[in-house]
């Protein structure tokens, strides 16, 4: 493994602020970032990455080049919740299995933007359609997860439930903002993008750093919640992302996806949702325990991916390409 790269990644402000947030929880500091501020920072990141992606797209990603990565994105979003569900069902009830499967089938936008930031640092290009991949991968797993648990639910209500989940899945706020910004980035002129870029582009790293401080605070508070639920979930939260990443890298290399795109697809495959899916699951599958699926994605998988995963996947891909 490329330790040099891990160290360099560790020394980037976003990661350091994330670790700082973990530390704040560890020393029981009363540091707190108001929820509405965190929502604003997160909105900014989606807005910024969406616009940027749209502009890249408008500068001409090759349509042919887009098909494989987007196809892979859909495939991962659908297949991951299925296979994980059957693993999970051996160790926990159908509700928790469905909720966790959905969590890991979906993606984490913050993990993605951290990876984008890493790529830019390394000076490597990627396609604007990867932002579409991010948006595409957010929701399907929610539907698969609910369907999988749905078999165990009462007849009459199952359908109504599924309909409202479908609606929620395709209209949830973060997917909406990222797709909207992507499309707007696509249609506006370069001159007009230049008008918003001092906000959306220049502030990106700084706001990401501040946001990661909040992520550290959250992850730190969540991680302790997992202790009481046994080793299995922790191992799942480490093993499944690595497995998904591995499979994704092999397929990408084999299918000739470009290096930058392969890297971002890998991080998407490896990441787990901690906003959209938990929110949907609380309502659609209230029998599942958020005290399990939230800490798994936020306390285990998120730090794993941004601290070790990003440089590791990068150096593995370097071997493969």
């Amino acid at each position, binding site marked *: 493994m490329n330790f040099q790269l891990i160290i360099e990644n560790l020394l980037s402000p976003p990661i350091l602020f994330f670790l700082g947030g973990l530390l704040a929880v560890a020393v029981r500091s009363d540091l707190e970032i108001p*929820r509405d501020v965190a929502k604003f920072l997160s909105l900014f990141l989606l807005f910024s990455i969406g616009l940027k992606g749209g502009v890249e797209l408008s500068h001409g990603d090759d349509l042919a080049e887009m098909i494989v990565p987007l196809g892979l994105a859909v495939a991962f979003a659908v297949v991951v919740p299925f296979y994980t569900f059957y693993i999970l069902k051996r160790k926990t009830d159908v509700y928790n299995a469905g909720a966790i499967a959905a969590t890991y089938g979906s993606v984490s936008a913050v993990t993605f933007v951290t990876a984008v930031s890493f790529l830019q640092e390394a000076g490597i290009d990627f396609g604007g359609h990867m932002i579409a991949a991010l948006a595409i991968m957010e929701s399907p797993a929610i539907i698969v997860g609910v369907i999988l648990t749905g078999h165990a639910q009462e007849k009459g209500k199952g359908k109504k439930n599924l309909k409202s989940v479908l609606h929620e899945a395709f209209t949830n706020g973060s997917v909406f903002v990222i797709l909207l910004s992507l499309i707007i980035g696509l249609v506006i002129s370069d001159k007009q993008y230049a008008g918003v870029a001092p906000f959306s582009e220049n502030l990106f790293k700084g706001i990401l750093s501040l946001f990661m401080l909040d992520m550290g605070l959250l992850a730190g*508070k969540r991680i302790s919640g997992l202790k009481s639920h046994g080793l299995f979930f922790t191992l799942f939260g480490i093993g499944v992302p690595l497995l998904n990443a591995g499979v994704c890298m092999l397929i990408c290399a084999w299918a000739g996806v470009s290096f930058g795109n392969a890297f971002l697809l890998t991080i998407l495959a490896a990441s787990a949702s901690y906003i959209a899916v938990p929110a949907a699951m609380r309502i659609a599958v209230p029998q599942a325990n958020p005290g399990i699926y939230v800490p798994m994605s936020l306390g285990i998988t998120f730090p794993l991916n941004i601290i070790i995963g990003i440089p590791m996947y990068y150096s593995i891909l370097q071997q493969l390409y």
Partner: protein
Amino acid sequence: MDFLKRVEIVVPHPKTEKMIALLEKAKVEGYTVIEKVRGKGNRGTQDGLGLTDAFTNSLIIWYGSASEFDQLQESIRQMVLESGGICAVSDAAWVKK
């Protein structure tokens, strides 16, 4: 005489509009909603952390007459049963409606 009842309902935040719709359909004269309260119940802790409001509750206060309450009681019960949360009632009196 028709006594006044103070009905207090706590539901998950994403169910707020549904519960309000129930009250509105019954044509109650008014209600008050406190959003984003924290809490703990049978379905675990709603600590308001994270970037979503899904893990917060809404507290709804409805003052209605005993007879109105009798009529609505069962449908409120049903909705709380479905959506999670609690509902309790106590006696009160208007100072000014």
